[in-house]
Each structure stands twice: as C-alpha cells, then as structure tokens.
C-alpha cells in the first residue's frame, strides 16, 4: 500500500502540471474580459492600455510560464519567509501571483477567506454527514417503514429544490417574518469581521451561521443519505449477513460492524469528492447570505476574468481533488482488504 501511495504521489506532479496548463488554456480562451465590468464611460483606448498593463498583450505561453514561476517558486519562498523569517533570494522585489481586480496577492486573499468558508461550508458538510449516515442506515435497515418514506421524501425534496430557493425561503421566514427581537430571528447577512472572543460573540457567530449551514446541510445530507441507503440495502441481503446472524452475533454489531463497513465504499467516494468542494465554497449560498468565502471570490474572479485569481484558486482546488481521490483509494483498501492495487 505504501508503495502504491508513493507511486501515485509521484504521478500526481505531472498530472497536476497538465491540469494547470489545461485550466490556463480554458481561462485564456474564455471570452470574458477583465475590462468587461468597467463602466462604459471608460473609452476603448484606455481599456487597451489597461489590458496591456495587466500583461495581456504578451503571448499565452509566456503568461503561463510567468504564473508557474510566481506560483511554484515565488509563493512557496514567500511562505517560507513569512513562517520562518528566513529570506531566500530577493524577498522584497519577488513577484507574487497578483489578482487583477484587487491588485493584491491571491494567496493572501485566499487566506483571508478560508475562515468563513471552513466555518460555514465545512460545518454544513460535517452536519450533513452526521445527519445523512444514520438516516441512510436506518432507512435501509427498516426499508419502506414510515421513517424510510419520510426520509426519502425529505432528501429528495432537499436535493431537487435548489439552494437559491431554500436560502431565500429561510431568509423570508427567519429574518423578515420573525420579529427582530425574537430569539428565533436570524441575521440574513453574514458578518465576516466578527471575531469570536466571548460567549455572546460565539452565540452571534452561531446565529449568523445557522441559515447557510441549514441550507447546505440539507443539500449535502440528501445526497449522501441516498448513497448510504442504497449501499446498505445491497449489503443487507448478502450471504455474509445471514452467516453473521446465524452465528448469533448481536444485530447491532452485524449492522454497524459488518454491513456498515462494507457499505461505505460509495459513501467514502462521495464524501471524498465533496471535501474539495468544501474548499471550493458554495457559490450560490455564499451569495445569498453574503458569506463572501472562497466561492464568492471565485465567482467574482470569473465574472471579472481575473485570470491569475481563477487560475490559482482552480489549481489549488485541483490539488485537493487529486489528493482526496488518492485518500479515497487508500481508504478502499482499508474498508475492503480484498482490493489490491499492486
């Protein structure tokens, strides 16, 4: 297994380089333009000058190599510098990956947004999994019981009603209809500058997270619970379950040790695919509640054709995808020792 992991890790480097190049080509070909969102009162000649000042007049491969240099060499050196205070090479004049819209280093922007994204999207993912797994297990164990039917109903509605709708619905209920002084009133706008220092600010943080987390958790739970249920059902009818029961094992251990473990493969896949998306943020939900996390950063970058920003974010996203898929592959081996990659 270790061998396999190392080989895969080595293989990821060319893969990621290739992915980064393809992403760059796509971003470069995309017809949106960094001056597209500027007021029409700015004349075309000035727009040309702006494009030139962003380096858009040099050929594509030069800009790609420049990004590579900035991202793979300058940014790590800079991090090194910040963490350990050691200076390698030219610390002041080193060019970092800089966003076109904000003219600030992309990595700093990402770091600034990480907290709210992890709080809201990450929390909703955890909540979603915590709800989904038990629901999936019980639904499968008691197939076609009222619990299963209601679970199915809720999860299907949760999945087929998009977040742009549930978000607005919750705001109308909890922020508009609910009187402002009620304990159930929830803020519709997320305050990213809030710092949790004491109990009351913690409560405030929980309140402002409540609605976006609810919206996203419903969506995530719906999906995961369906896979969990289906996979459990498959395994419950297998011979080894009958054997286990016949051997007199407790129902609880049959279910939770044997069946659950064997049913986890598709669920692990779904969860592993979902974790990078946590870091990718939730574009629509972030927009509705103005969480302004990574999802909002990405969408603003895309709308403004901010190539360095989008390229960096998407690439980091790609790294996470590749890594978590590797983690999933390794987990398969633990869940089902018969799976061999050698």
């Amino acid at each position, binding site marked *: 297994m270790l061998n396999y992991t190392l080989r895969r890790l080595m293989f990821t480097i060319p893969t990621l380089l290739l992915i980064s190049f393809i992403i760059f080509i796509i971003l470069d*070909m995309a*017809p*949106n*333009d960094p*001056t*597209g*969102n*500027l*007021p*029409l*009162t*700015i*004349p*075309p*000649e*000035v*727009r*040309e*000058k*702006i494009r*030139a*000042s*962003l380096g858009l007049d040099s050929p594509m491969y030069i800009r790609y190599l420049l990004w590579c240099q900035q991202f793979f060499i300058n940014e790590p050196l800079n991090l090194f510098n910040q963490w350990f205070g050691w200076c390698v090479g030219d610390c002041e004049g080193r*060019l970092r990956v*800089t*966003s076109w*819209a*904000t*003219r*600030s*280093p992309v990595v*700093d*922007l990402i770091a*600034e*947004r990480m907290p709210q994204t992890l709080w809201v999207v990450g929390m909703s993912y955890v909540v979603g999994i915590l709800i989904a797994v038990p629901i999936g297990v019980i639904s499968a164990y008691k197939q076609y019981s009222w619990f299963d039917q209601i679970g199915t109903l809720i999860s299907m509605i949760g999945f087929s009603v998009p977040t742009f709708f549930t978000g*607005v619905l919750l*705001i109308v209920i909890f*922020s*508009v209809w609910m009187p*402002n002084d009620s304990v159930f009133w929830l*803020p*519709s*706008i997320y*305050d*990213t*500058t809030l710092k949790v220092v004491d109990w009351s600010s913690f409560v405030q943080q929980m309140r402002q997270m409540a609605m976006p987390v609810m919206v996203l958790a419903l969506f995530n739970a719906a999906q995961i619970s369906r896979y969990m249920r289906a996979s459990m059902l498959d395994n419950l009818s297998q011979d080894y379950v009958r054997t286990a029961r016949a051997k007199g094992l407790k129902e609880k251990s049959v279910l939770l040790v044997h069946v659950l473990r064997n049913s986890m493969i598709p669920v692990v896949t779904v969860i592993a695919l979902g974790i990078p998306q946590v870091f990718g943020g939730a574009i629509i939900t*972030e*927009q*509705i*509640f*103005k969480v*302004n996390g990574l999802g*909002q*950063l990405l969408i*603003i970058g895309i*709308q*403004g*054709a901010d190539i360095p920003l989008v390229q960096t974010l998407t690439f980091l996203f790609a790294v996470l995808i590749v890594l978590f898929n590797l983690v999933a592959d390794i987990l398969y081996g633990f869940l089902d020792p018969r799976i061999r990659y050698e």
Partner: protein
Amino acid sequence: MKLTHIIAGTLGAALLSTTAMAQERGRDGNVNVIYWQAASILNPYLSGGTKDIDASSMVIEPLARYDENGNMVAVLATEIPTPDNGGVSEDLTSITWKLKEGVTWADGSALTAEDVVFTANYCMDPDGGCQQLSKFGGVESVEALDDLTVKITFDGPKPFPYGPFVGSTTPVIQAAQFANCTGEAAPTCTEQNFGPIGTGPFTVTEFRANDTISLAANENYREAGKPAFATLTFKGGGDAASAARSVLETGEFDYAWNLQIAPEILADMEAKGIGTVLSGFGPLVERIMINLTDPSADLGETRSTVANPHPFMSDMAVRQALSMAIDRPLLVEVGYGKAGKVTCNVLPSPAIYDSPNNAGCEVQDIAGANALLDEAGWELGSDGVRAKDGVRLSILYQTSTNAVRQDFQALIKQWWTEIGIETELKNIDAAVFFGGDQSSPDTFQKLFADLEMYANTFDGTDPEAYMGNWACSEIPSPDNAWLGGNMPRFCDPAYDALIVEMGGTADINERARLAIEMNDMLMQSYTIIPLVHRGNVSARANTLEGVKLNVWDSQLWNVADWSRAN
C-alpha cells in the same frame, strides 16, 4: 434658587447639549452600508468600477465634485475656476485651481499642490494602466505654482476643462504615501491601494477585498463635528434583491446601493415602513441600437461592417415602425417603476440638453407602424412575417443577461410580432457582452445581430464625449480591433461637423443647441431607439438622515453629513 437662575441654567444646559450634539464627531456610533457589488480596491485610478469609486470617495477627495443637482461644488479647492473669475485662461487652454488653506491628510500632514501634481503624473504614467486616463485627455502639464495653487495646461482650447480632479473618479492621493507606486509599480502597492491616506471624512481601519471595509471617522477631517458616525461598515456581495431586503425589510443595514429589481417587489418591501426608496435621474438611457450593416454570418470578415448595408434595417420605414410599436410607458411600469421615465431622446439629461423635438414616442401606435410598413412595400406573408423581394423581416435581438432586460425582450418581441416582424431573442453574460474580447463573437461592439439593447451614460454633466460616440471614425470594425462606441455604424458628415463645432464652443447654451441637434439627428433617423430614461435607485433606513442621492457623482459623496435620527 431664583427663577432667572433656573431659566438661565436650563437654557445654558440646553445650549450646551445642542452645541455638544452638533460638535461631537462620531456621536452616532456605527452606520452600515451595503453595496451588492463588493469593492475590490480603494484606488479609483486602478479600478474604474462604480463600487470602488464610491467606496474610495469616503476616504479620498477631488478638488471639486458634483452635488445632487449636477452643480459643481468646491471640495478641496476654494472655488470653481471659470473664465469669469480668471481661473480658466482666456484662450481656454489652462485652468488654475486654488486649494483651501489648512486642509490636512488623515495622518496630520498638510495637503499641498505637490500632491495634486503627483496625482496627475501618477495617472498619466504610460506604464501605470490608469483607468481614469481619459479624464486627463489633452492635459499637457500639471504644475504647482505655489503650495496652494495648481495650474493644468491643455494642448489646445478646452471648452470644458473640468475633467481632471472634478468628481470622485479623480481624487487627490497623497504623494508621500504613493511615492514608490508610480508606473509599473502601481499594482504592487497593495497596502497603499487598500488603505489610501485621504482628506475625506473616514479612514480605513480594515480592508477585506471584495468583502467588507471597516472605516472610522477621520480625526483630522477639516469640518468640525463631522462625520456624525464614529465607524462605518461597507459590506459587499450578494444581489440587489437581498441588499434591498436588508435595508427595507430586516433593518440590518442603513443604506443600500443600486437596487435594480422589479418595482412591485421594491414597493412591497418599502411598505414595511422601516426604510425609504430613493431615486434620482442622471443621463442613463436604456436604448436599442440598430445595426445598419449586415450581420449575416456568410459575410465572413466583412460581417457587421459598413461594407454591406443591412438588407432591411437600412430602410428607415422599418426602423421607424420598430420604434412606433413600442409601448414605452408600459416598459417603464414593468421594469423600473419610480426609477424610470419615458424618454424619446438618447440625451435626456441634464435638462438643458433635453431635446423638445421628439415628443410623441410615448404613444404606442401598432396600426400606424403596420400602415407604414404596408406603404413601404413590406407585404404580410402567410406565416405572419412581412417580406419584400424575398427579404423577410426576421430579427435577432441581443442584450446582456439581466431580469429586466429579458422582460423587455419578451414584451417588445410580442409587439413586433403584431406588426409582422419575427424576433429571435438572445441574451449574453454581461462580462462577455461588454467585455470586448477580440475572440468572442458576442460582444456589443461586434454586434453580430440585427439590434441590441443596453444602457449607457456619461460621467459628470458634459455630453461632448458621449455625443462623440456616433462619429464615423468611431464605427467598430476589424480595422480598429472592434473598438469604438458607434454601435449602429451611423455615419453622417453633417453629424461629424457638429462634433467638431462643439469641440470649439465654450458657451453653455450654444453647446446645448449643438447637443440637441445631434440628438435629433440620431432620433429622427431612428438609428437609436431610446426606451427608458433610467434612474438610480437606492434605499436608506428611516433612521438615517442627511442622505442625498447623487447621480452625477459618488452616491456616498456627502457621507460626512449623514447622521442618525433621534
């Protein structure tokens, strides 16, 4: 205690408390402002976006700005220079600004003429990518005559010399702070661009790009007792509807910007009674631009260029019929409500430029349009579409993606069906449509469609540059890399002559006459079909006082005067 004493005492106390009230800076705590487009930078020279300009206008200020009525008012200057007071030279080639005495930057140092000179050079540096460069068009030199006097010299007569340093697009930045940020270094100065030191009522305490700006009252602000708010939170992100909701329905925010949402929804929100919708009218006009050239894909390179006239749009009867079939009052009612007015001009504002010669377009006339087309020989076919000599009146109608525009498309398509014109609708993502990317076929300059709809306006109050858009030389084509503002490909030597004439005319009434004449040429040839004179819509909480919606300048232009109602 004697009675007089008591009276004097209470009087004194009352006086004291009112003066204390009026004088104490930061007495009203915090105010929350929401812009649904988040500010990404606080340097208008590096970002021309309205959100960035508005946000920075609280911190850095120009020499003069426009008030809510479109009049120029001095900010850092003592007065507006004019030919009458000698501030503008006789030959119109230079303007001399005098700075107010005793103005200090937020860090306590004095504002001098050198700062103004530095700012001009900062923007005019060829490597800086300055987005307000057009404001400095024709500027030959900017020099400091003494500590408080700046002279701007132009390369020729400039009848309207109020480009540089008038309005929030060109504020004065501090030379000391930006000294190492000129030219190619401009974009690398993150710290400076995120937290400029200014002369305005607020200073930046924390800047989170594309998210939230926290500001605090500027302790060195030149007006005593202002601003009334100690801190200001400028939140960005989301969409117009939720921004409106946060002011009008949930009361979490005090001011929301640019609420272009369905009028009935806005009215419903306002009915809750905790906020007020404000609207004001600048020169923004939603219009249809007719393509006078042939956009057919078969033409290859010469598609949508003057080489090929349009098969039917070059017939004025068709263009006129298109305009007559539109019910403009209904469009206003459906799309904009209080924030829109019917207009028959592409230049409806300021009032002095508004042509009186095109009235009548507000009445929809389907029968008249049909008669006009019949007369011009466009016969109704069996499929309900008119045709002449094998040319069918079938139109591709493009615009950017936006709920109101799609409603307009649907309504207008229906009216045009009634006069026998077939319409196919197309909407394009705004970043692509307005992006001007050379490789994209969907930009508004290329206009690979029979007509397109969007809104345009101009900065400040002078329409010279705006009317100059429809000169022959402004026609976008492959030769000029599709740059240029003349989307209809309208070309008339008489029109070009008027532009030249306006460039040499200083008298405001004479300029108005010329602008009206140009407007009428465009209107009466039905090259541009104006639809709605659009206003800006914002909302404020009822507890917020002193807000004056300004359409000529930053909406936060008088944030120093805002205060909390008791």
